[in-house]
Structure formats: structure tokens, C-alpha cells
């Protein structure tokens, strides 16, 4: 038997891969290390401000993702089946929030729904309610930047479902809605879940648009990423607080990702 010696290329690839892995691992390790090492960071974990930011992040992202699924799913399906007049325009528009810097999205949202905005002003005149600097504004900002990611993924998923299967299901006596629920969605489940996770991750990390459109009011609009920035920029929590908040954010992301993976796996079996 001839043993093949590792070639130079194999070695180079191994070095690159290990370096790359360390590059991603080290920051997380640093975060955990500082949190364990620094008693003030552990103390900050118990600060009510951290709890408030966590709760606000969970609630707003849950609502944002729900809204994205609710409005995005039918749109994605119609786009996939090319059944909307002007679909190409809508398609291009959906790409904008993905490409746009979030701060620009925030400014754009202000011009539409702000107190002097296109829609914001008449709404305030009639109802006396104003959107900016409320939790609702946080949800609007998150949905604006995150929903397109879901729509895009869902659309690709729906496109992969053979329309012939849907047609046959119809001839078997199933209504459009029944076919959508029992054939289309299950067959596109993978991309749909992936899209929802992407959407949720984007909403959870949302910073720029929220900061400009909703502000950073502790307990009202200050989600976890905003709280990190506030603490880092000399807020009462300070750097240890920023570390504690980052750790919480990391934990939440990990738990939800693992949970979704489990759900997806069980669904496949």
C-alpha cells in the first residue's frame, strides 16, 4: 500500500481553515471570558435594564417575524407564480431594504411615518397618535428591513414546488387554500423556515433603522443591540454592561437557532 503524503495544497487549506475558524471563535470566547472574569459584567446581567432590553427585543422581533410571515407568505407565493401585475417592480422594491444601509431605511421611515411624514402627519392630526419613539416604531423598523429576507427565501422555496403537483391536487377535489396548506407549504418548508430564521436574525440585530426611527429610550424602544450601543457610549451600564448585554444577545440567538433546527429536523422525519 502506498501512503499518500499530505501535499502542500492540503496543508495550506488546513492552515487557512483553522485560521478562519479561530477568527470566528475568538471573539465569542473573549466575550464569555470577560463575562466570567469581570464581576461587574456578571453584576450587570442582573440589572433590570438588561431584562427590559431582552424582553423588548423578544416581543418586538416576535411580532415583526409574525407580521413578515403573515404579509410576506402570500406575496412570495404570488411572486413565485408570477400572478401579480407589476410583480417585477415589487420584486425590485423588495430588494431595496436588503441592499440599503439601515440608517437610510430609518430616515426613509421617518419621512413616511414620522410626525412630519407623508402618512405620519395626517395620522397624528386625526388620531393624535404618533408612531416614532414607541415600541410600534421598533416593530415597523424591524419588519421593514427584515421581511424582504423572508419573502426572498419563501419565493425561491415556492418556485421549487412543481405547479403540476398543485394542479393535480386541485383535480383531486382540494380547494386552492387546502392545496396551499397541504402541498405547497409542506414542500417548501425548508426554505420557508430558513427564511423565517434569517428574518428573525435580521430583526434581532436591527440597530440603525430603529435608532433613527424609534430612538433609544430605555424600556420603550431600547432593544438589546441599542442597549449595547448605549452602554458602550457611556451609559450607566458601562462596558461591563455592554459585555453582559452582548452575552445575552448571543445566548438568545443560539437558543432560537437550535430550537428551529430541531423543529426543522423533526418536521423532515
Amino acid at each position, binding site marked *: 500500500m502506498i501512503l499518500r503524503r499530505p501535499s502542500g495544497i492540503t496543508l495550506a487549506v488546513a492552515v487557512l481553515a483553522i485560521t478562519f475558524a479561530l477568527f470566528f471563535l475568538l471573539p465569542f470566547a473573549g466575550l464569555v471570558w470577560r463575562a466570567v472574569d469581570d464581576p461587574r459584567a456578571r453584576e450587570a446581567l442582573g440589572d433590570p435594564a438588561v431584562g427590559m432590553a431582552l424582553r423588548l427585543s423578544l416581543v418586538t422581533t416576535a411580532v415583526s417575524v409574525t407580521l413578515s410571515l403573515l404579509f410576506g407568505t402570500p406575496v412570495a407565493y404570488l411572486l413565485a407564480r408570477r400572478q401579480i401585475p407589476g410583480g417585477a417592480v415589487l420584486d425590485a422594491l423588495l430588494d431595496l431594504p436588503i441592499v440599503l444601509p439601515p440608517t437610510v431605511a430609518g430616515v426613509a421611515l421617518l419621512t413616511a411615518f414620522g410626525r412630519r411624514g407623508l402618512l405620519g402627519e395626517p395620522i397624528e392630526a386625526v388620531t393624535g397618535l404618533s408612531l416614532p419613539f414607541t415600541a410600534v416604531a421598533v416593530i415597523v423598523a424591524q419588519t421593514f428591513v427584515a421581511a424582504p429576507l423572508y419573502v426572498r427565501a419563501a419565493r425561491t422555496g415556492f418556485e421549487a414546488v*412543481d405547479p*403540476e*403537483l398543485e*394542479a*393535480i*391536487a*386541485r*383535480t*383531486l*377535489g*382540494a*380547494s*386552492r387554500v*387546502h392545496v396551499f396548506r*397541504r*402541498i405547497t407549504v*409542506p*414542500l417548501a418548508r425548508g426554505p420557508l423556515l430558513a427564511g423565517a430564521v434569517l428574518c428573525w436574525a435580521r430583526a434581532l440585530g436591527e440597530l440603525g433603522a430603529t435608532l433613527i426611527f424609534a430612538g433609544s429610550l430605555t424600556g420603550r424602544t431600547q432593544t438589546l443591540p441599542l442597549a449595547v450601543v448605549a452602554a458602550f457610549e457611556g451609559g450607566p451600564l458601562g462596558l461591563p454592561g455592554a459585555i453582559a448585554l452582548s452575552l445575552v444577545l448571543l445566548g438568545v440567538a443560539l437558543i432560537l437557532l437550535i430550537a428551529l433546527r430541531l423543529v426543522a429536523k423533526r418536521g423532515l422525519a
Partner: protein
Amino acid sequence: MSLEAAFTAHAGRFSLDVAVEASDEIVVLFGASGAGKSLTLRAIAGLTRPTSGRIVLDGEVLFDAAEGIDLPPEARRTGYVVQEMALFPHLSVWENVAFALPGTRADRRSRAEASLATLGLEGVGDRDPGTLSGGQRQRVALARVLVRDVRLLLLDEPFSALDDAIRRSLRLELRRLQLELGRGALFVTHDLREAYLLADRFVVLNAGRVLQAGTPGDVFSRPVSRRVAELLGVRNLYRGRVVATAPDSLEVEVGPLRWRCASWVEGLRVGDAVDVAVRSERVVLRRGDRPAVNALDAVVESEEAYGASHLLQMRPLAGGPLIEVDMPARPYEVLGVATQKQWLLELPAADLHVMRASG
């Protein structure tokens, strides 16, 4: 069951204009690919909206352009089966069959299993459709439409993707089921043998139009036009002219040859330009006495051996077109065609069919 469908439909630049009738029988829509067979079925199933016309099934109007009636596919109670890729991959076999059945789970399951049993599929209910053979999958697809109270089966080349042997057994099974259940079926195929075997009524489609409809025997032996004859596999087609008529035959001149033909379409007169069709397997190679009519001397110009049969291209000594002869291996060997190249050919008058010239 009774179906009356007459409609036009469009798909891209293709236009379809057909009229099809069916009762409790198998109506075969026969034609080359692109003839509009599938589009016809899809329109009846409600998957394509016709541009005009009317489709009535058992007295119920499924579609009527003038009245603005267009029942959705789920309300038409037709059983649509296609060539392949038709089973839902994420559902088990029984769930596929029970799809859209109402009732409790146990109820639906027992109905599904009963329908599977009718098609000789027992104990596969829990399996994943992907693990079945092609033949089994098509049986499941049939079980899935038969489990419901469908009024009309719409079968779009259901067996075309299968092996010969399985295709044969499924054809016979379809015949048996059709007799047992007494349900009508529109069966689309481009396979002439399959079409002939299954058809109670035979409809020839070409370029979106019905060229001919009738019993398979009638269509097969009396095509109305050159195109129909071509589609039915006639290889010997000759342009000629009627030179005489008699009550029981026509005299037709084909080049320097003169043939008596005992089969013809209505309304031909002396002087008319016609097409004469004779199937390759109907041409006879003779030894001994010269027959009284349609005899000619010819030599084998080329031949192709297909194992079970031989295809000979014969050139008449008196001039005129090549005549193709399809000869089974046994007579080929007994006569010694391999060594003897000049023969007396007979074109039996009953097998010479005359049509009005077209194209």
C-alpha cells in the same frame, strides 16, 4: 356518464379547436406530440381556461364561455392522471390516495387501502412513494383518482414512462377496471398499438384539430386524409388519379401503374386527384400464378432486418414509386427472400384505400 366538449384554447402561439364526445367507454385521443392532446385534457380538468366553447359533463356545465361558467378543477369530479411526477413526495402512499377525502383518519385510511387493493397494491400504504417502482407509482396514481367518485378519467399518457412489460399489464388492467367500474375515460397517447388496444372510440388529433373520429377499426382501415394515414403508420402513400369507377371499386392510376381499389372515401369522381394508401404489412409477395388484379413485378432495392420482421423497399420493374413491404421473419425465410430478389407483388384491392388528395 356523458361528455360533450367543444371548445377552443390557446397556449402561447398554439391554438386548439376540438370537439370531443364520450360516454361510458374509453375514448383515445391519438396524435403526435404537440397535437394538443394534453391541452384538451387540461381544459376538461379545469387546469386551462378555454377561450371559447362549452364543456358539459353528465348534464352539468363545467365551462361555458358565453354564460361565463368556469367550474374550478376541484368541483369537476374528474380523475386526472399524468405520465409521471404526480405523487405528493411528502405524503405516504395511503395519504396520497386519501388526499382531499373527507372524514376521520381511520375512515380515510380504510377507503385508501381498499382502493389500493383494487389495483393489486397491498401493504404499501405506509411507504414513501419514492420507494415504489414506476409501475407501482402509476397504480397508486390510479387508485388515488378511483377512490373518489369521479365521473370521467382523464389519462395523459399514463404509462409512457414505464417499461414495456409493465405497460402491457397496466393497459390490460385499465381495460378490466374500466369494464368493472363502467367509468368513461379520455386516454391520451402517441403510441398507436396502445391506442388501438384501448380505444372504443378513436380520435385523431393533429396541430390542434380533430382530423378524424370513429371506431378504431374504421379509422385504422379508412383514414380520411393523407395526414391521418401517416399518423396511423401507413408508409406507402401515393399521389394518383381516379380513372374509372365501379360500384365496388375504383380504378386509380399511380404513375405508370393502374390499381383497383376497394376502399375509398365518399364522393370521388373520375379525374379527381387522390392519395392511395396501403399498409406495408398488407403487400403480398407471391410465387406461382399471377393474380388477376394489382399484380406487378418488382425487385428488392434495399432491406432492413428487425429480427421479428424484415422491411423491404421494392422497385416495380414497370417504373413507378417504391413500395415498402413489411414481412414477418418466418415467411421471409420460407420464401427465401434473402437470395431471390425479383418477386411478384400483389396489392389486394381491399387493402388499397383511396382518399381525396391533400397538401
